[in-house]
C-alpha cells in the first residue's frame, strides 16, 4: 500500500534563504513521485515529477527534488525563497497496480517573510 508523509505542516523562511520541504513515502511498487503547489483559490500546479529516470529532478521556478530510495524520501528544495513562493505544497505518490491511485500528502504551508 502506498502512503505519503509530509513531515512539516508549516515551514517559515525569510526571503532569499533556502527552502526545504520534506516528504517520505512508502510504496509496494516502483512509484512515480510529484510535487504540486496550490496558491490560495487557485488550482494545483505541477512543480516537478520523478518517474525512474534521473534521481535529481529539476522543476519550475527554481525548485528541485532528489529521489532517495534508501531513505524513501523525495524532499523539495529551492536555494533562495521568493515572496511569491508562499503557498501550500503537496507531495504525491502514484503507482500502477492495475488501477491508478494517486495519494497526496497532507500538505506543507510555506510562509516567506520579507
Amino acid at each position, binding site marked *: 500500500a502506498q502512503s505519503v508523509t509530509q513531515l512539516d505542516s508549516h515551514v517559515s523562511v525569510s526571503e532569499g534563504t533556502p527552502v526545504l520541504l520534506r516528504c517520505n513515502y512508502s510504496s509496494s511498487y516502483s512509484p*512515480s513521485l*510529484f510535487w*504540486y503547489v496550490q496558491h490560495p*483559490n*487557485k*488550482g*494545483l*500546479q*505541477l512543480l516537478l*515529477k520523478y*518517474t*525512474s529516470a534521473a534521481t535529481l529532478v529539476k522543476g519550475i521556478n527554481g525548485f528541485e527534488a532528489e529521489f532517495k530510495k534508501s531513505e524513501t524520501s523525495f524532499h523539495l528544495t529551492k536555494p533562495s525563497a521568493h515572496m511569491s513562493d508562499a503557498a501550500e505544497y*503537496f507531495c504525491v505518490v*502514484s*503507482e*500502477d497496480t492495475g*488501477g*491508478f*491511485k*494517486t*495519494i*497526496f*500528502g*497532507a*500538505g506543507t504551508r510555506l510562509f516567506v517573510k520579507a
Partner: protein
Amino acid sequence: GAGVSQSPRYKVAKRGQDVALRCDPISGHVSLFWYQQALGQGPEFLTYFQNEAQLDKSGLPSDRFFAERPEGSVSTLKIQRTQQEDSAVYLCASSLTGGLGNTIYFGEGSWLTVV
C-alpha cells in the same frame, strides 16, 4: 479546451439536496480523476476513469456518491442526499494517457457547502 474546466465553481446546497458537479477534461485526455479536498487537508482520491470505464472507485466515501463519464469525455460527480460532512472542494483532473508518471492536470475545483 486549454485546461480542465469545472462547474459550478461554487455551490451551496441544503442538507438532503442532490448535487451534480461537472468536469470538462483537457481535450483528448484519456484518464480522469476526482478528488475531495476538505478544508486544510490534502486532496483525497475518489475515483478514476480511463475513457468511459470507471477502473477504480474505491475512494468514494458512501453509496451516496456516484460518478460517470458515459462518452469518455465529460464527467459528472453526483452526490445524493447531501450531508454537512460533504462540504469540501471537489477537484477534477485529467492526464493524457493512463501511463504511470503522466502529468495530471487539475481544474480549479467546485466548492460545495452544505448548510
